[in-house]
């Protein structure tokens, strides 16, 4: 494979596509009127569709990756792992079969109810369980964070206490001034800090974009040169 093909072609494609998308943002309004605006909008939409289509192709990589890793665990009987892998492969196959069997777009509708049932009562329930477990992690993180060991930790403890108390019914009923203090902290101190981080992040993203378009950032191509 020639150097031009491996190194320069992807960067040239990235540059042209990137410039088109940047121009589209700056010259196409929400309601395009001029012919050039309509053309640019169509070009932008087409490129976005291509990107999504290419991204969809990579699902195959994921399927192969999962099948290889977990079938290896099962065949090697990896201690503490193989039964999870076997269960994962079994459930994955079941979901694929039931999913295809219930796909109206393919003209098949024999297992739509079963697919919906599994999605609602198994998958969604498990996801909800994981999400709700976050409450315990937040509690344990708070326990460690809210210890007045340094000046910064003390400030965090005081602000955290005020914010937490402002959300409790007792303080809302008997000491509503706490709510005003918490709102003031959120409105001025927190928001201004967030804006600082946001501006820095935006500048970083812009320069990373410029480096990418100029072929100086090649990590997305899978190389570090």
């Amino acid at each position, binding site marked *: 494979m020639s150097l031009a093909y491996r190194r320069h072609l992807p960067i040239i494609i990235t540059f042209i596509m990137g410039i088109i998308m*940047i121009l589209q*943002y*700056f*010259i*196409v*309004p929400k309601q395009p009127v001029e012919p050039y605006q309509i053309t640019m909008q169509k070009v932008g939409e087409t490129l*976005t569709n291509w*990107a*999504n289509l290419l*991204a969809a192709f*990579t*699902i*195959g*990589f*994921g399927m192969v*990756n*999962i099948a*290889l*890793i977990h079938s290896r665990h099962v065949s090697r009987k990896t201690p*503490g*792992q193989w039964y*999870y892998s076997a269960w994962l492969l079994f459930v994955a196959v079941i979901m694929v079969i039931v999913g295809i069997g219930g796909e109206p777009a393919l003209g098949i509708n024999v297992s739509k109810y079963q697919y919906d049932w599994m999605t609602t009562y198994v*998958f969604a329930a*498990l*996801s909800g369980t*994981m*999400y709700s*477990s*976050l409450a315990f*992690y*937040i509690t*344990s*993180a708070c326990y*460690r*964070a809210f210890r007045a060991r340094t000046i910064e930790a003390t400030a965090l403890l005081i602000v955290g206490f005020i914010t937490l108390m402002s959300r409790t019914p007792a303080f809302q009923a008997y000491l509503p001034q706490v709510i005003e203090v918490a709102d003031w902290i959120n409105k001025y101190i927190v928001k201004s800090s*967030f804006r600082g*981080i*946001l*501006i*820095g*992040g935006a*500048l*970083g*993203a*812009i*320069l*990373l*974009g*410029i*480096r*990418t378009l*100029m072929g*100086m*950032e090649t*990590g*997305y*191509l*899978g*190389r*570090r040169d």
Partner: protein
Amino acid sequence: MIVSGRFMEFVALILIWVLAMIAIDKIKKGWTVSFRRIAGLDALEEAVGRAAEMGRPVHFTSGLNSLTGTWAPLTVAGLAVFGEVARLCARYRVPVIYSVYGTQVIPIAHELYKQAFLAEGRPEEAKPEEAIRYLSSSQFAYAAAVQGIAERERPAANIMVGPFYAESLIFAETFYRVGAIQVAGTARLYQIPFFAIVCDYVLIGEECYAAGAYLTKDPAHTGSLFVQDLGKMVAIVLGVIGALLTTAGTKAIVEFLKL
């Protein structure tokens, strides 16, 4: 031709672009610029070294990554850090586990991993099919799978750079419990406090985007870091002027930026 309200954005972009090119050119010609150290990125070697001493793997995640969404730049930044982590792991012969959420990064991660081992002169030791693990593209299924890896394989170091959502604290707390040293970075505002509380080192916002440049120490990258800092100074000056003018009763600076 430029859409109303986006003129100043366009001017700012062109200005940043031109300044970046000038700075890169000057640095290539020998101009030296010094930067503050980024503790989180300096700590990568310490984290991998610790894993080598303990004989345990290093875990890496780029969060709920995507190369087609709003957070694609952050995913690219995460991949740059993964390239460096893989190189360090190859050097110290430490197994690395990259838990993948979005399938788009799998081929890129494979290539970065192989390149890292090649760069360290150990291409035969690369095992991308064991290191790069696609888990799930569903947020909490992914979170559960990462937790499983943490509990079963007990990595000595956990490095997280990318877009994180509600699962960030689940990861940080789980790896804290298994005793892993943690380096975490994201530009997602609501997850930064979680990382700041639980992790040993934190990359805040722009530090993640600077990672690739900082780690490679390439003159071309140093130039863009210089412009990044210059941009921050301009933003601070504009912010102060804007605050003073608004207090004085005029919104001239706001109107100017809205052009």
